[in-house]
């Protein structure tokens, strides 16, 4: 039975630009519907329109029928909002923010439950949580537990439609798989699940129907198996090709006498907890790419900081081109700018209240003989960045552009080694492929070394010459 039927949804913003054009989707009980698309494709707007939550000033046309009821005009936000909790439920991106911080889990579940005679225990067990979790407050839940609690809320509630908004954003591979299992439990219970994501792994594992959105239009839709095996639209094909597991790996041999970075017997741990890593050795030759991978919290970022001389190791030594930054302050001063970091959130490496161009020019203050007008233009061209971007503030730049600008900032310092900490985890797959290709190319051109930190094993394997899996420090 069809419980969500959206017909001819068209959304314009306050300046009358079409953001979504003529989108129709439907989902039946016990069926997942996955809407995939990159940032700005309009996929989240579809969810907001269904919930009657579009920003003020937006105009919307089309109809939404929820729970088998009569179609409601999509511009009647108040009528749509009346279906909340009764016919439709949202699993938001940040699950902890959706729970009342001062109410115990059990009471929150009871509030949503249709059948109040049953305690919260059964629902919690259904999502693999101990019944005792009912007595906890949201602040003592981890992100994953909070998500489970929300799914339990959906299970005890009556809503036949559940919308999951980017349920796996920023999660590592193991957690993506667990979240997919969790969402599938909703489907098994006969709910219609609408998942909005740019995560192909999640889309593959949920199955059901897939709708691919680009520039506000649904360019292709159909059963997941068909869309993933025989994509018809060129955009879908490009998207699938951007999946790192399909890239040709590249693994080369290097002259191991010419190292930009070496580390021996590294150990680091926080007091009272087991060491994050111990007796760790690694070597990065000129022109080589080393990847560090493993689940969140395994110490990848900490190791990156140790290699960059930011955090001192408990034992072992780091060698930058023959000098130890922790024992040789003169070498640290001399080599500091040559060992750089590319951050996960590229926008945040720029001060918010200063234009990007000014911040790049600021580097001249610490680098004698640096003339931004000479070195920057060819670099911008190489990174395919428009010079007009330099006049913007960091908040006015898209994720892909920001990562390339952050890269430009680092490259201006002519680094010998870049530690790239999850440089693409916030980017869409197509942009990720572009940025990774760029990074690899630059490593070759400039003969620098790179340490890539990523929770995505497939990406690490496809990019690096050597992979260290920090789950159990096994080299692949």
């Amino acid at each position, binding site marked *: 039975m069809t419980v969500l039927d959206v017909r001819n949804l068209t959304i314009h913003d306050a300046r009358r630009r079409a953001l979504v054009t003529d989108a129709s989707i439907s989902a039946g009980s016990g069926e997942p519907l996955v809407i995939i698309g990159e940032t700005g494709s309009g996929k*989240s707007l579809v969810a907001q329109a269904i919930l009657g939550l579009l920003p003020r000033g937006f105009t919307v046309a089309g109809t939404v029928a929820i729970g088998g009821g009569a179609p409601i005009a999509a511009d009647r936000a108040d009528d749509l909002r009346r279906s909340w909790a009764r016919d439709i439920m949202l699993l938001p991106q940040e699950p902890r923010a959706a729970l009342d911080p001062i109410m115990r889990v059990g009471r929150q579940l009871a509030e949503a439950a249709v059948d109040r005679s049953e305690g919260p225990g059964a629902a919690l067990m259904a999502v693999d949580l101990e019944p005792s979790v009912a007595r906890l407050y949201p602040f003592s839940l981890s992100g994953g537990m909070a998500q489970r609690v929300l799914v339990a809320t959906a299970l005890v509630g009556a809503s036949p439609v559940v919308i999951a908004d980017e349920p796996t954003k920023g999660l590592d591979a193991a957690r993506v798989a667990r979240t997919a299992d969790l969402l599938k439990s909703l489907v098994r219970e006969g709910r219609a699940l609408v998942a909005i994501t740019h995560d192909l792994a999640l889309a593959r594992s949920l199955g059901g129907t897939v709708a691919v959105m680009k520039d506000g239009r649904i360019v292709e839709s159909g059963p997941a198996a068909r869309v993933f095996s025989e994509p018809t639209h060129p955009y879908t094909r490009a998207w699938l090709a951007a999946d790192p597991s399909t890239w040709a790996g590249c693994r080369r041999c290097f002259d191991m006498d010419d190292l930009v970075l070496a580390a021996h017997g590294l150990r680091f741990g926080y007091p009272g907890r087991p060491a994050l890593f111990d007796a760790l050795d690694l070597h990065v030759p000129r022109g080589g790419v080393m990847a560090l991978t493993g689940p969140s919290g395994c110490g990848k970022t900490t190791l990156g900081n140790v290699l960059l001389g930011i955090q001192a190791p408990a034992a072992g030594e780091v060698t930058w081109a023959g000098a130890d930054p922790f024992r040789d302050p003169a070498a640290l001063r001399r080599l500091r700018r040559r060992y750089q*970091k590319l951050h996960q959130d590229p926008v945040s490496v720029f001060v918010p209240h200063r234009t990007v161009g000014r911040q790049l020019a*600021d580097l001249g203050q610490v680098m004698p003989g640096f003339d931004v007008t000479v070195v920057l233009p060819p670099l911008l061209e190489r990174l395919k960045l428009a010079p007009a971007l330099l006049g913007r503030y960091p908040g006015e730049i898209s994720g892909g552009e920001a990562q390339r600008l952050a890269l430009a900032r680092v490259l201006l310092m002519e680094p010998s080694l870049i530690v790239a900490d999850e440089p693409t985890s916030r980017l869409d797959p197509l942009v990720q492929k572009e940025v990774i290709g760029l990074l690899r190319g630059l490593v070759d051109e400039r003969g620098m070394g790179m340490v890539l930190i990523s929770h995505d094993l497939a990406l690490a394997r496809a990019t690096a010459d050597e992979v260290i899996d920090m789950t159990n420090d096994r080299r692949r």
Partner: protein
Amino acid sequence: MTAPSVTLGRPRARRFPSASLALVGAMTALAAVGPFLVATDPNAQDLLRVLEPASWAQPLGTDHLGRDVLARVVHGAPRSLGIALLCVLAASGVGVALGLAAAYGTRLADAVIMRLSDLMLAFPGILLALLLSGFLGGGIVPMLIGIKLTLWPQFARMARAVAIGVLQEPHVEAAELAGFSKHVILARHVLPPVLRQTMTLTTLGLGSAVMSISALGFLGLGLQPPTPEWGAMINELLPYLSEAPAQMAAPCLAIFLAVLGFTLAGQAVADETVRSESAP
């Protein structure tokens, strides 16, 4: 991507920012140019014409010594508001500097500065100014020091909290890796957000400083007669309340409007700060 909750939670623009601006603007204009427009000497006595009601020559009447009340209110404005501004600027300067030192300095510096600010916060605000003025005799300097001492801890705490947050941000680490000095990082990365956040306190602080100055003046511990000052004027006119209520209402109204203006403006600044931060 914008999560739906963001749409629901975005704070609305509210609380008459234009009204507060007009009030603050009017008060500033009164203090800046008023004394030049009202040429009457605020201290000129005319004992034959005491406690006279309003007339064309003296629109607010005369006080118990026959002085022109309008002239005294207008000439009092630069004193009350000017001293308030001085107090708040000094307090914010000291507070922000100490707050940054606490955030950026050693653990010991942090502990010392923060316990000191706790100590100051534990004092009932006006009491300290009262004590100082009492011991050192009235006048402008003890009053300045007293009010400043009660105001700086708020600035220090706010500056410290904001600075600690900013220092965790990747752009600070990126600047350190690029080899920028501590001073540059402090001035370029930390100070601007700190100043933006303390703007609210500065504006609200002006209101409370005007109140404190008037209270001290009223108690005879602030500016000394015959200097025209709003608090002192209320004190002088208090015995004649039944005969000349309008004369006393004038300085009261002036204090009321100044405090109201700065408080509303402080709210508007706070709203603006929140809004600019939650904007996409």
